[in-house]
């Protein structure tokens, strides 16, 4: 398909520790079309951050890609040279980090960090680079006088906006957002998400949005994938998943969301936590926490089934 920007097939990402490899992501496959917003949801330890950092090849040691294929616009990312990757980064693929305070260099001004990024991607004129840096800040609603500010001098919301502006500075086709609102309070989070949605509609870049907040994706994403213990257990159109989803885990996540005002529902917390990746459960990895689990779930692995257009699920439950 010509409009597919990113293809991921059977991706496996592991941490190579001295005590042997720990597989954090296994057998993950999905496509991302140009201009599409794909949300990836999962609780902490589900491997969602490892997954995107791995496929972009920015995961630090001891992380390593141990299997699968990743193609970005026809380029094999897993075979690309260091130079080819550097040329691709930020011009084509950029990232909005979880905590911009840690991701920005504490001893350089915001302006210097935008300018050096532009400089690394072909902007040779310092004057033009400074003017463009000011535009980057204005794009995300920050006064250009803050070019001279240091990261620690900005508020949390402003820092995340700087990071958003920086991610758009070189006109990337794919912007990966790694829980960009986790550190923010609800009001500031809402403001940032509106900005993301508006800029995406205006500029048409594709977004891979990682979060632990399923509700957040209902409004933002075109499609949603659900990760559990390093595996993609369900992926489908956002409106389908908004109605509940098929996988018991997806439904569990949905049930745990506190009800909106006027909604007649009692939230049911999902018991337990992500399994230890060093010794994952046998069979379906979700079975120890699944209400519908039976003896077969403990033994056999799940297979992926297509339930509707673009809606895949990996569970033992029969289709209704």
């Amino acid at each position: 398909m010509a409009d597919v920007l990113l293809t991921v097939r059977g991706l496996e990402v592991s941490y190579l520790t001295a005590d042997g490899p720990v597989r954090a992501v296994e057998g993950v496959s999905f496509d991302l079309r140009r201009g599409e917003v794909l949300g990836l949801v999962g609780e902490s330890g589900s491997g969602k951050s490892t997954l995107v950092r791995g496929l972009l090849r920015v995961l630090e040691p001891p992380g390593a890609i141990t299997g699968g294929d990743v193609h970005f616009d026809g380029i094999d990312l897993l075979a690309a040279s260091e130079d080819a990757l550097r040329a691709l980064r930020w011009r084509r693929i950029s990232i909005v980090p979880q905590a911009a305070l840690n991701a920005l260099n504490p001893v350089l001004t915001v302006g210097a960090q935008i300018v050096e990024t532009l400089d690394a991607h072909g902007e040779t004129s310092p004057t033009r680079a400074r003017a463009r840096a000011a535009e980057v800040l204005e794009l995300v609603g920050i006064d250009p006088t803050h070019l001279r500010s240091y990261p620690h001098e900005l508020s949390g919301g402003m820092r995340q906006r700087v990071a958003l502006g920086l991610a758009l500075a070189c006109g990337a086709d794919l912007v990966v957002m790694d829980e960009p609102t986790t550190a923010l309070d609800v009001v500031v989070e809402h403001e940032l998400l509106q900005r993301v949605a508006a800029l995406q509609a205006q500029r048409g870049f594709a977004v891979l949005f990682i979060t632990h907040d399923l509700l957040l994706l209902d409004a933002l994403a075109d499609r949603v994938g659900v990760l559990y213990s390093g595996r993609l257990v369900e992926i489908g159109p956002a409106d389908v998943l908004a109605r509940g989803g098929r996988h018991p885990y997806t439904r569990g996540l949905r049930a745990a969301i506190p009800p909106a005002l006027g909604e007649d529902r009692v939230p049911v917390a999902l018991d337990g936590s992500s399994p230890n990746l060093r010794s994952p459960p046998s069979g379906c990895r979700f079975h120890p926490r699944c209400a519908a689990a039976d003896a077969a779930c403990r033994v056999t692995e799940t297979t992926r089934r297509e339930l509707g257009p673009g809606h895949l699920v990996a569970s033992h439950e029969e289709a209704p």
Partner: protein
Amino acid sequence: MAASSVRSAMWRNGKARVGLVLAGLFLLMAVVGPLVAGDPLAFVGVPHDAPSAVHWLGTTGQGQDVLAQTLVGAGPTLLVALLTGALTVGIGALIGGLAGFLGGRVDDGLSLLMNVFLVMPGLPLMVVLAAWLPTGPVTMVLVLSLTGWAWHARVIRAQSLALRRRDFVVAALMSGERPLRVLVVEVLPNMASLLASSFVGATTYAVGAQVGLEFLGLGDVGAVTWGTNLYWAANDSALLTGAWWTFVPTGLSVALVGFGLTLIGFGLDEVTNPRLSSPRAPGLPVGQPPGSTPVVRRG
């Protein structure tokens, strides 16, 4: 970690083993040396005689046997260094432990004291202290400990600050035990590995500082130690007559003892804090600048 498992882990650690063997050899030399060497102060030949079959390491500017002086010098030098190591850590544990353990005003005051001692240049301080006190090994131990304790106190303070909040310490204090007793009985034993590595570090420092002070003539120049050997070598113009053998054997001994102790310290840190050695798993690049995540396909 239990003491016996630390001992066996130390022996398995390459650095520690080399260090233990080196330090052991010199300790042996300190014990056996005086028995096999003749009188190190006796005039046995012409001054500045080069190494020969009679005098394996030559003679000093006073016509004394260099080998005998090197062998005999090991004992007092190492004894002073070990005693200094023990006293330094003792002062450091007491002051650092009290500061971290009691906190508040006591901590403020003791921390200021530590920082003042840390910022003072060691040698001039040692010189003014040593100059007033009668020369001899006791003075040497006192001066070296008084000038060297602050760093260890600082490290021990940080550790006891952390231990203070632990359950067993809180429980002991709640049950009405005297704080000083809790510090000595409960807190300090729980930083045995830190105290051990402080002791090794302080001993290493004491070897070098002692030799430096004696080289200046602030030791008992009539005694035979590694420091006074170098003092006399310089005094007798070894450098201007080319008598390298008067200072090379002693200097190498000092360096090898120091190197051995440093290795023991490295090994101790690695054994008690395994994160420091962090063996890399196969497949990950080594010696490469940070870059893209490696692709390591199985099979």
